[in-house]
């Protein structure tokens, strides 16, 4: 018997129309078709979703935690990048 593990896949679920697909977890599957079916069985048992994306985990490239200081700290003191310095007219709702 072939003991090699099936590759790992990352699963993204859209909970309802109009929302983004959100990462929910990962699973093993032999190919994309099986990954989507497995995702259906593992992650949408309680009506969590209306659409599934799967991506083989090897194709996800992540930032290196060692770089986090250089990557993210410089944004800390740049409040002017937030669009919070405008006067919003009263008639505009849902901003």
């Amino acid at each position: 018997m072939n003991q090699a593990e099936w590759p790992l896949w990352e699963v993204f679920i859209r909970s309802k129309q109009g929302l983004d697909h959100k990462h929910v977890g990962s699973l093993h599957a032999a190919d994309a078709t099986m990954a989507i079916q497995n995702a259906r069985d593992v992650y949408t048992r309680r009506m969590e979703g209306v659409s599934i994306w799967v991506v083989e985990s090897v194709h996800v490239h992540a930032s290196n935690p060692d770089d986090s200081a250089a990557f993210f700290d410089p944004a800390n003191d740049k409040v002017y990048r937030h669009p919070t310095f405008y006067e919003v007219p009263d008639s505009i709702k849902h901003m």
Partner: protein
Amino acid sequence: MQVAPSDTTALSAYSPEVRQHLFQYVLQLADTSLILGHRLSEWCGHGPILEQDLAMANIALDLLGETRSFYQYAAELEGKGRTEDDLAFLRVATEYRNPLLVEQPNGDFAATVVRQFLFDTFHFHFLQQLQTSSDERLAAIAEKSWKEAAYHLKWSSEWIIRLGDGTDESRQRLNKALANLWRYSGELTTPTATEQALQTLGIIPEYTRFQEAMTAHVAKVFAEATVPVPQETYMQRGGKEGRHSEHLGYILTELQYMQRTYPGMTW
């Protein structure tokens, strides 16, 4: 989610004889889903991989939901005050009406997949037609369960293809399972006297109506699996008339243990 009870006038529209046939037949549908659901639940915690363990448990739960709808309807048809639990847990083996296929042991994963595929092929096409039944309750249950059956068929068809067109070992196991189980497939579409009576009245579909679609689906899946469709024509039967293999007794012993030991027990 359960299908709402029929109003009693709908039931009284049937003659006592038809009502008796319908009661027996609805029991057959309920028993079939119960026994297959129980068989699948035996995989829980023993699946070849976590994802498939869950897949089989999901199918088992779908079947159990369908089972409840049918037993509830059967209890109303009988009208003797028995409940769904009485019907599921307090009858003896010879009163069960499930076809022999669904009581066959799980065996290895290939055997479970073959048993499921043969059942799903029938179940899917049957429920599709049952939605147009003149009996509103059966039509409503069929409508709900058909969507589930469509997924089951997708799952088992996919696995027939993977096992057949997989490794030497998976192919060999698939062929062995087919050699053991094919002979139980014919009973599903061979009507009993009860089924014939209901078919004549248009309450349930003639099985010949979807035989061609079933054969075409099997041929398509087997072609993709690069496995020849078995040519064996001798078919086992008897389960739908209460003549079961030894396996059913063992299943019921486990299934009925709680109700037999602690009568009337509830969770």
